């Protein structure tokens, strides 16, 4: 059975891969990708139902924090039903988004801002090393380069230093990360195609 699944996975992977290089495999690639989209959507639904079942069980057992589980289940079911019935452009859905989802997540981002600022202030008290100092200096330079003054950009920082830091240093680091990600993705794909890794089951 494991061999059978491996054969299927490798065959599908090869056909999808060949679809990038050969036009003859485009149709089969599209078909397989559509199957993958359907499966991904079903998986999302399964995940939602599993979430509902877990928290419903917590409510039924009256465990600690079951109130939050109950709120989660109620909000989830309500959003799901409203979304299916009212569609996303409905005013109710917009109220739910603008009144609950967006402020909550934006607040978390504001808290993160204060926390990061507080940590940066006290960083040198614990670790007064080079990296900490570089971190603080880089942050200060970007802050100064991103902001403007009432009379215009901060001299040198907004027109020279910030672009130099972001376009040279940060871009170099980002490219290295992207290259690493690309190599990792390539190797992972090859391992799956050769049957070395079987994330679909088996070893």
């Amino acid at each position, binding site marked *: 059975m494991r061999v059978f699944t491996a054969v299927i996975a490798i065959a599908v992977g090869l056909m999808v891969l060949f*679809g*990038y290089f050969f036009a003859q495999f*485009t149709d089969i*690639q*599209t078909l397989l*990708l*559509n199957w*993958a*989209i359907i499966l*991904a*959507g079903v998986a*999302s639904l399964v995940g939602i139902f599993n979430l509902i079942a877990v928290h419903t069980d917590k409510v039924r057992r009256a465990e600690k924090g079951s109130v939050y589980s109950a709120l989660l289940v109620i909000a989830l079911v309500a959003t799901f039903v409203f979304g299916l019935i009212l*569609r*996303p*452009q409905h005013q109710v*859905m*917009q109220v739910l*988004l*603008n009144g609950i*989802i*967006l402020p909550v*997540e*934006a607040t978390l*981002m504001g808290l993160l*801002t*204060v926390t990061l*600022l*507080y940590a*940066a*202030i*006290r*960083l*040198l*008290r*614990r670790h*007064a090393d080079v990296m900490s100092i570089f971190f*603080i200096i880089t*942050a*200060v330079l970007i*802050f*100064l380069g*991103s*902001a*403007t*003054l*009432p009379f*215009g*950009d901060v001299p040198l920082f*907004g*027109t020279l230093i910030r*672009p130099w830091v*972001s*376009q040279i240093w*940060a*871009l170099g*680091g*980002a*490219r290295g*990360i*992207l290259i690493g990600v690309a190599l990792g993705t390539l190797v992972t794909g090859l391992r799956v195609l050769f049957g070395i890794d079987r994330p679909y089951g088996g070893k």
Partner: protein
Amino acid sequence: MAEQIKCPICGEMNSAELELCTNCRSPLQPKSNIPSGQNPTKKHTAELEPILPQWLREARDASRSVDPQDDSPDYLQTTENKPKPPASQPDLLAGLQSQTSDDDEEEVPDWLASITGASPKSKLAKDEPATDVRWVEMGNKDDFAQSENILAQPPSRGGQEDDVPAWLAGLQNESAPEKDELTDWLRDSNETPARETPAFESSSFTPTQDETPDWLKQMSADAESKSQQVSSQLASDSNFNVDTPDWLKQMSANAEPVEAKVPQDAPELNIDTPDWLSTLGGASENALGGESAAFTEADVPEKEAESLPPMDMPDWLKSSSEVPDEKPSQDTTTPLWLKPQVQSQEPEMPAWLSSAEETVYLDQQKEEPPAQDDLLGDVPDWLKAAAPEKTIFDSQDELKSEIDSAETPDWFSSIPPSGETEVEEKSEPEKVDPFASMPAFTLDSQSEENLDGLFTEMPDWLSGATDQPATSQQPIPITNEDVLPSSDLPSWVEAMRPSDSGLSQLTSSASDQTLESRGALAGLQGVLPAVPGFTPTSKPKAYSLKLNANDEQLRHAGILEDILAAETSPVPIESFSTLLPSRALRWTLAFLILAVVFSTTFLRTQIFSLPRGVPNEVSAAIQVMQSIPENAAVLVAFDYEPSRAGEMEAAATPLLDQLLLLKRSRFTLIATNETGSVLAERFISGPLAFHQQSGMQYTNLGYLPGGQLGIRAFAQNPSVTSPSDIFGQPAWASPTLQDVTALNQFTAMILITDNADAARVWIEQTQGLRGNIPFIVVSSAQAAPMIQPYYDSAQVTGIVPGLYGGAIFEQYNAGRPGTARNYWDAYSIGMLIAMAFVLGGGLWNLMLGLRERREDK
């Protein structure tokens, strides 16, 4: 009236001329071995003389020298003429001279006739019972096995042949005249004792110098004088009971029930019993009873012997033990050639035994157990104990002394010179083999007393082991003192014992007296001694623990030791001074930032100027927007989180506003995030509400699942992957997507994302399918550096990085819609405050940290 005879079967009277009974058609006259019309042929066995024993041949020669004309030996001559002194008879069978009558030729036994050449008497052969008592009579132990073999064989003969002893039947058989069994038997009697029976080796069965065995001389001389005394002496001799073996005594005791089962008309069971045994058994009230008691051990109760089952004893022994008073004719089991003498002298006792009883000194034998051990030299002690204490070998051993004195067998000497010449015929011999179902020894019938007595002479080690469970619960240790001495062991057991060296070693380790408490060796002590080789004989040699290593090896070992020590030793955690969370600082920071941001936002101040410098990626995006034709289909992908909605809307609103305002582009919205479709509707109904109210055209395809697979599928065939909008209507038939069936048919692609990975997926999966359409990425300030390489590689046409890029793009949109500008003062003040806190607070905390570390040092 004609002579009539009675049918032996049905009793019908028939004419003597008839051969068959008129009633039952059975033969009226028994058949003889000699067919009618034929005369018995005279057999001459002289040719077998060379195989006779030397003493017998000499006896025959002597007889021939006396009477060359007569073929019969001397002893036959004496039976024909007159009795002679037995001592003067040189022949082996001289004693028979006194038994036989004077003129009756039929008294000559067949076997004697075959030797002497006389014609055999068929009647005697017919009436001779098939008995196995030769070993008893002759004292040959080998006859035991022979009799057992006979028992093992089913009776193949019937009728008259069953009644003939085997050793006589061979003589009677005419078909094998060359092989004289008597000769063999006699030869065996001379050979087997020397070969197999040690007790007989020392006996005087070998001929003496005067060519007459001493026991024959003694037998013939004392036959008449002692035969009358034997019975009375045996009856009165209570000591005779002492040496009677248990098995024989029990057999004699159990004989009576068997006798009760015998039918009245059946032949007597004791027909196979020799006289000496038949006279031993029976009731104790007669003279023979005393003789039987003489074979009974004094310490064995007689009632126990009587309680034993009758099946434990062969018939021939049973008959010997139950000789009744009213059966004086029990000596029919006696061989015919002995019977006349027995009947004439002592009807209840064999002659040879009667003569031998005088020499029985059982008490002396009991007092001299080594004598018996000598007889059973090859028998282990435990078998000696199990064996009958007094057997025929004992009697033979006793006879040894008697023979030494008189040199005449008792059974020969007991033969009277005169007696009846006619042997009585018995009606029917016992056809049932008395040994068929009678084992010689049955331990089941032994009582405990008998068993105890049986094992009294067992070796200590065995008797101790058997008595151990009964005597005490605690296992009795068997020490080396209990080991059977090697001198007491028979040779075959001695051969099985370990060698003396090993034994000595084991005995030398007697100090190891470990008592085994469990297992098969429970109760044994010292049976598993330690091997002497392992016993330390001296102080163990001290070996030096110092390694013979050079300096380099020691140095390497030290390095390895340091590595191991570093791995195993716990790393001390650097202790820090407890830095309590500064709640006041956090509240101060939060209060200052929120106050500045909220104040500048709500006050809508425009103190801070917009950025003046335009990055290249933003400039490229501005150029793309300006190059897009009017009423073009533009694909807009929403892939950001609601938390970043403020930044992303502020960055993307100037671009989309310009497209709607100046180009009246047709937007096709699609989301690869679960909340993307809702955020897209929010974006349309929020910053672009003005355009929505004015009738902008857009189509929201909703959520595209599958991640990069969905993006790839959508890029390949968007109409198949997302065929309908969020309302369920066919999307690709709407005016928004008019003339658009593929990705490359869109005029431009705009990706609004705050995730660098999402931007990468869109860039990579649509690169070969989107063609040459411009691809602009509106990203957050955080993800812009990760997308910048795609711009440098021309995979992305332009980038609008966050609020900073939106503020720049808004300046090229105539300041519309002004969202970036509204946030820019707050954004700039917040950046400056953050920079001030980080820089000032960092320096302050750096100094505090240095001071604390200095104080700690």
